[in-house]
């Protein structure tokens, strides 16, 4: 099993992979992404918007499809996983209400992009990815881009990360048909858990789980339309 099998794997993926990617050339795209796809749809939390303007999303996307990094859609990152649509990342981050001292746990690191956004808002970000190769790649990317303090490990997200619990915020990036009890247990009283609920293909609902005085409640916040990636893009990024 992967539980407890921590990774410090940044060295496995050389930073040279990301060389030759002058960020300045794409900051304009990021600004357009925020203005057109995110602000326009009602996300108003300034720190969230600032984070999205800052984090170079294209560096979390496989080289072959970086040109599509700022499109209004998720993109495949291999192993059957995707990097979420920018709006979903923004909506979840805003709803999570992450403060500078919040301890954040992410279930489903994927590319590491959501963790990087969270790291712009908080000093303590922990992220678990079930696919070891993705965990290693995300750890390498985060280090290269400058988010060394994000703790990434490969493992089964079901168990959460009890060594660092409780968490103020838990973000589950891909909903299963149940919410693991250990995650609910590791949510701090007064904490918030965000889950996009819905089929991989279809309309998803953003669900907020809160814990207050030991009682757990949910609130469906909004439908977040999922735009699946196309096969043409998918084909360009098969697991190597």
């Amino acid at each position, binding site marked *: 099993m992967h539980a407890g099998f921590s990774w410090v794997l940044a060295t496995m993926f050389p930073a040279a992979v990301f060389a030759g990617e002058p960020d300045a050339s794409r900051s304009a795209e990021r600004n357009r992404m925020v203005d057109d796809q995110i602000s326009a749809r009602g996300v108003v939390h300034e720190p969230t918007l600032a984070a999205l303007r800052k984090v170079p999303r294209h560096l979390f996307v496989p080289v072959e499809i970086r040109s599509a990094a700022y499109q209004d859609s998720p993109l495949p990152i291999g192993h059957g996983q995707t990097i979420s649509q920018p709006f979903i990342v923004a909506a979840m981050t805003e709803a999570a209400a992450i403060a500078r001292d919040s301890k954040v746990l992410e279930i489903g690191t994927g590319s590491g992009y959501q963790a990087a956004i969270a790291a712009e808002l908080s000093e303590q970000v922990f992220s678990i990815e079930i*696919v070891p190769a993705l965990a290693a790649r995300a750890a390498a990317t985060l280090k290269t881009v400058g988010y060394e303090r994000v703790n990434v490990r490969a493992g089964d997200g*079901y168990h959460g990360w009890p060594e660092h619990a409780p968490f103020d915020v838990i973000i589950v990036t891909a909903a299963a048909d149940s919410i693991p009890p250990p995650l609910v247990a590791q949510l701090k009283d007064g904490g918030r858990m965000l889950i996009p609920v819905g*089929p991989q*293909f*279809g309309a998803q609902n953003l669900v907020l789980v809160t814990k207050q005085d030991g009682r*757990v*409640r949910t609130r469906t916040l909004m439908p977040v339309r999922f735009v699946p990636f196309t096969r*043409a893009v998918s084909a360009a990024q098969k697991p190597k």
Partner: protein
Amino acid sequence: MDDEKQTSELPHRSGSEVPVLSALGFLSAAVTAQQIALMQVLGWMHWHHFAYMIVAIALLGFGVAGTVLALTREHLQRAWRSLLPWLALGTAIAMPLGVRLAQHEALAVDLPLVFLNPPNAWRLVALCLLLLPPFFCGGLATGLVLTAQARRAGLFYSASLAGAGAGGLAGLALVASVVPARLPAAVAALALASAACLWREVASKARIAIVVTAVAVAAAWLAPGELRPSQFKPIRRALDLPEARVVAARPGLHGWVQVVDAPALRAAPAVSLEFAGEIPGQRAVFVNGLGHGSLLTPDAIRSPAWLDYTTDAVAFVATKPRHVLLLENGPGGWVALAVRRSALRVTVVEPNRSLVERLTEGDAPLAPEWRLPAVNCVVAGGRAYLRRTHEAFDVIRFPSVGALGGTAGLAAASEQFLLTREAFVDAWQRLTPGGVIAVTAWMDFPERNPLRLLATLAEALEAVGAPPRAHLVAARGWATVTFLARRAAGPGGPAWNPADATAIRTFCLERGFDPLLLPELQAPEREAHHAWQNPGFFRLVDALVDGPRESVYREHAFMLRPATDDRPYFSQFLRWGAWKRLHEVFGARAMPFFELGSLVVALTFVILAILAVVGVILPLARLGWHGPGKAGVLLYFGGLGAGFMCVEIGLMLRAQAWLGSPVVAAAVVVTGLLLASGLGSLWSERLPANRSTAWRLVAVIAGVVLIASFELDVVGPAARAWPALVQIGFVLAVVAPIGTAMGMAFPLGLRRLEATAPTHVAWAWAVNGCVSVATPAGAMLLAMSAGFGALFAAGAAAYALALVGAWLGGARDA
């Protein structure tokens, strides 16, 4: 060319027609079996068996072959003997090759993406074209033999029919025993056998080709390659998990059963957030790539604590479950939950024999709970069992409806006979006093599944004289809602007394659920734990319970009217009339996310219609169409094509209600119709080919179709309880007279046309072929929106058009 001379102009070598007759029989068997095999292959790769599309593709292949034959008749007929083995070999090669090519990254269609990614729409066209060649080759070979041997056509036609009948049986046998990836190669062996029958007739080049093809077919069997399901199918997601592997599998008539093991697999659907225990690892069961339950370890079976924290458990709160019936629930914790809740007996009803056998065989069965002493496992369809059994139950649990967050309408074209108004009425009749029907729906947005389920339950209750408000309760969690419909414990007594309501209220409070329907319910209770984004949802719930429902059905953006046995498409929510409103509310690109299944059927209709025109009609255009009587030809032969296909699709859908498996239903109906219409065709030669015979015959067919539809309506409910073989016999008994009558009309009209207006003959074939190809998808759309009865009525109406055509002169007297 040497071969041609040798085989067409000179006497053939053996001096007997047995090889050709055998070859024709094997080839027809292969073509029929291929249709059945493809239904299973597509059922595995996508969400639907696409029987209507496969029938249409087969007809398109035959139609294109007919056009080629019409254009090159003289040339081809001279060489028919030499061409025959090559066409058989072409069929054999094309069967596995088409399916293999359809897996290629550049050609593989992912249906959920067809409306979002234009190349996927083109790939759907490519799929139709890739599956076409075997039917083209088979059709051309058969047409060649029948036209070249016109004087003995009856003999050869009989061989073809016998082969088709045997092919239906062979197709079923192969689907039951061969994994989907190997099916095309297995069927190709039949086409190869067709060529082999001619071994002594053919020259060395053809013999070498037969050997080479045999090697290729063997290779396709031994190394079938991967048959990749859509990236969105649940099994793909499961197999993407680390260390995931398939640990058990078995093909079957109800689909390919696979058991996947992975350390991270756990199943606790919509478990309460108040549950603090451990959810043990479980293996996942898939049928045709769709989730069909999970397998508990013996420890988990003994202590399935988490199941007490699902909304399903509310069924046991106010009911003493002595005898529990689990209808098509699949493996999982339901047996364990019932036993934990003190059930003395649990009856598990599963239609999939392969699934039951695979999960219960051996000393260490994969589903040990199904072999507990208190458990009786019955292989039967849920509806059939409800009709057949004389037992009564305290709890009848239906399968869950929908999926986490919705289903994007992928199941819209699937017939679900267990989720109709009549199904719940049947279940109600099998309840003990105080017994409950329990059914859980996943919450979706915009809300569709829970609302239609509620409407169905409410109408079913009214049908049995039970006021819905008095008999329904419901509990909602963060992702599911469970409805309970309860019989009163005694005459005149309440279904739910205050003590029951208190028990349910307490259960909800402890488990973190919200009562949705309950006596004396206060509005704030409905969202005490789980706030729902749409307050209008609760108003709709009350309106559907208390009525009048018509205004809700009429005004809601989605179709909420309950599914019925006549229109068993529970997951079809699209109202074409509400399209504009949906478009305004959700935007154009959102539509495929809600109602993909209906849209895919509509798209295949367009694609097949265009392919039919391009492949069948356009090639004939260069011949021109001259002479009077075109309108009659169009109406007569077009009407026959449309009528035949409406009836064929209608019979397939009706038969599925009794036979359970769509593949079995399609096989029985297609084979029965082929045989019956072939016999009708032979019999038609005894009738005078004049106008009055034609229109009288067509009038009789229209009448027979209407009578058959009525007969099926009347006998249908009772037929559910019959044994499978009797059901098959009943279907064949219905199919035989219809098929025989329908099979007479076309050759009769054609014969008359050859005598009176020979220039119209090729066009008559083309018009009939073209309409026959386009109709199946249209028939599916009609069945989904208006029901099976409407489909038969449309078939009768099409024959009425043919009658007009006969009158106008499509089959006029000279």
